[in-house]
């Protein structure tokens, strides 16, 4: 007898409907279970899990001949999320599950040998696809139900076991209520007030948050570069509904969404280690997975020890930095993934990383080679650079750090001004720069002077203009005055030297 269930295959950030078609013959008795339709290794092994889980539910199928077909056949199917729909279709074949109700719902979940359901990644993408597919009811592991419920229109049914899923489909059980988990405390972003004695670095961070500019911090180990970077997410505006859903979907598809975390409202903070490969950074692999640039969408990508990153990985960052998206092409197809993030890079002034400049043992050539490695591919994309030194005592004494809340208020006000112009400063297109961010007369004079004296490229001048616009916005000024331009030039110089 032929039975059907509906599953979904996650491709990048989306999911596509897969028809699970099974043929079950009790009589043959040879005990064969075949899955066709481009299953991967994990999916092939579903046979063992399904047999065992079905047995735990009371149905012995090890002597039956079972064929399962996953259509469309040319789509590669991966992972254990197909366990539940295949198992339900098989059970329908034995008459244990009502085929009519099964035909109307979507299902996803991995089975344990004892029949329990285990959570799988990409629930949000699957729930969205199911709603689009006209199947708002989604049978899923109970741990995933809350995540699926974030999708408007989706009615997830969380089940603890295969048996429970079958009983709900047969109308013998009622779905249990969905439990939202407490947000995890680790999501709390640390406060900016902790960073003492680095006033100009804090200022640079505020400017970057206000205008969506990229930042390079240069300083010896232990002066607060990482501390500052971690606090950027706190002063960025929280994600709106659309951004939050996108960020959550990305994290879900990559399988890094913490259990029951709900919608991600805090801008993500991604800090890949410098040994990261290009595929890890921009996405890819034989199965196309979102990379760090995509995971950082709407938030911060922090590259500590910038010159230690592989050069090809840094080169690959240029396109996402410019376009806000990344196209990954593999033999299996090509995908356009979002990648709009604020880049924060940090590096030591020299490769030996000595805490005091006087204790540095590096030759000048080595220092230059080290700095060139970082600056070559990326310097043109960095708007703001700042040098951090060990805070001097007099700076510590006079420094009055503000809280994240105080700084965020100014950032939000500056962002509101930008919203009235319809464009975040960091992404003002060149054609509209003079209209939206043209400095006043004195500012223009200073900018021209700087361009000549510092041999700035046109792109460099544009970056200064954008940052100057943000500085004026933070001060609530309509005109971009000479002081804003001067500070923007100073921040540009910090990245160049």
């Amino acid at each position, binding site marked *: 007898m032929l039975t059907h269930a509906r599953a979904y295959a996650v491709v990048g950030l989306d999911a596509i409907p897969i028809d699970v078609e099974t043929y079950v013959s009790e009589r043959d008795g040879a005990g064969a279970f075949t899955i066709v339709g481009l299953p991967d290794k994990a999916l092939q092994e579903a046979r063992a899990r399904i047999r065992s889980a079905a047995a735990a539910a009371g149905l012995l199928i090890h002597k039956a001949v079972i064929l399962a077909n996953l259509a469309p056949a040319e789509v590669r199917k991966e992972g254990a999320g197909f366990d539940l729909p295949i198992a339900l279709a098989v059970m329908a074949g034995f008459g244990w599950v009502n085929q009519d109700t099964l035909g109307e719902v979507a299902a996803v979940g991995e089975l344990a040998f004892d029949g329990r359901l285990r959570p799988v990644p990409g629930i949000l993408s699957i729930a969205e696809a199911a709603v689009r597919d006209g199947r708002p009811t989604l049978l899923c592991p109970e741990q995933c139900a809350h995540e699926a419920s974030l999708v408007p229109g989706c009615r997830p049914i969380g089940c603890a076991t295969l048996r429970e899923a079958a009983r709900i489909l047969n109308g013998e059980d009622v779905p249990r209520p969905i439990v939202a988990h407490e947000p995890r405390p680790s999501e709390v972003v640390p406060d900016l007030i902790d960073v003492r*004695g*680095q*006033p*100009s670095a*804090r*200022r640079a961070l505020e400017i970057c948050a206000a205008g969506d500019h990229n930042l390079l911090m*240069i300083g010896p180990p232990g002066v607060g570069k990482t501390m500052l970077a971690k606090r950027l997410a706190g002063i960025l505006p929280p994600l709106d509904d659309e951004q939050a859903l996108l960020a959550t979907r990305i994290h879900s598809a990559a399988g890094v969404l913490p259990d029951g975390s709900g919608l991600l409202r805090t801008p993500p903070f991604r800090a890949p280690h410098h040994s990261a490969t290009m595929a890890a950074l921009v996405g890819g692999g034989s199965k196309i997975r979102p990379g760090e640039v995509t995971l950082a969408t709407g938030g911060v990508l922090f590259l500590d020890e910038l010159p230690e990153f592989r050069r090809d990985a840094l080169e690959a960052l240029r396109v996402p930095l410019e376009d806000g998206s990344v196209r990954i092409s593999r033999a299996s197809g090509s995908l356009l993934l979002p990648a709009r993030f604020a880049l924060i890079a940090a590096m030591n*002034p020299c490769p030996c990383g000595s805490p005091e*400049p006087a204790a540095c043992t590096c030759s*000048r*050539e080595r*220092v*230059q080679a080290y700095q060139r490695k970082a600056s070559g591919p990326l310097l043109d994309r960095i708007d703001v650079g700042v*040098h951090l*030194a060990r*805070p*001097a005592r*007099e*700076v510590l*004494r*006079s*420094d009055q750090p503000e809280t994240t809340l105080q700084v965020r208020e100014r950032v939000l006000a500056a962002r509101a001004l930008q919203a009235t112009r319809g464009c975040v400063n960091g992404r003002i297109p060149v054609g509209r720069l003079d209209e939206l961010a043209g400095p006043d007369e004195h500012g223009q004079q*200073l900018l021209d*002077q*700087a361009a000549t*004296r*510092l041999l700035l490229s046109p792109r460099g001048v544009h970056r200064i203009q954008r940052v100057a616009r943000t*500085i004026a916005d933070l001060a609530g000024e309509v005109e971009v005055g*000479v*002081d804003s331009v*001067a*500070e923007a*030039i*100073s*921040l540009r*110089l910090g990245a160049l*030297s």
Partner: protein
Amino acid sequence: MTVISFGSGDYPERLCDLANPPDRLFVRSPVGADQLAILLAPPLVAIVGSRNASVAGVAFARRLAGELAASGVGVISGLARGIDAGAHEGALERGGRTVAVLGCGIDRDYPSATIPLARRITTEGAVLSEYSSGTPPAPFRFPERNRIVAALADATIVIEAAARSGALITARLALDLGRDVLAVPGAPWTNGSGGTNALLKDGALALTETADALIALGIDPGAARQDDPPITGPASKVLAALRREPVSADVLAARCGLTPADAAALIVQLELAGIIVRETDGRLVPTR
């Protein structure tokens, strides 16, 4: 490439002052051998110093060379990074004469840090060497090269040299040849002051401004002197603080009671005017 042999009419006369003048000179320049005399004509000064000079030291060399070039003084040096490169660049910026003397064959791209500068000098000045093409750089060739630098110049100016700097060899050779030696004094606790201060103790002339060099060359500085526009307002306060001690922007802001934003704006204006420079460790140093 041109070759000038000892005894030829184009051979620079001043090299004959040396006990061991080079047999041949290999020259790369847009001008012919007969015109080389114009590039090397007096007044001509050598500006030499540390390769690992401070940013402020290089800025000083560049400004000095530029102002000398504007007064018609040619600048000769060794094309090393640091002070040498600053001096060549300063002279080129003001359209002046500049000549680089190498310690290797003139076809070698050495030192690599100054390759773009070397290209400019070969098209706008002259690069010369006593070594034939392909000769690799070697430690013993640099002192040999220095004797040519010292001999060709009317005076040798040393900016930032540690106690055992190669620039001191040039200065000693210049003294042996009876040429003037000028040195820029440095605070004894700074890196590049040991050698220059030792020269001063031995009787070198102190150089703190361009006029000192012009006087040594017998040129009336009054004709060339141009006063810098005075710094006024909050910028003067910032500059005064940096003259007391070069510090980072954060410390400067704390000392002057400025916000980071205001301090940054003032610093940039002084920086663009060439009055202060940023050292690689982030300290801000006045150049005059």
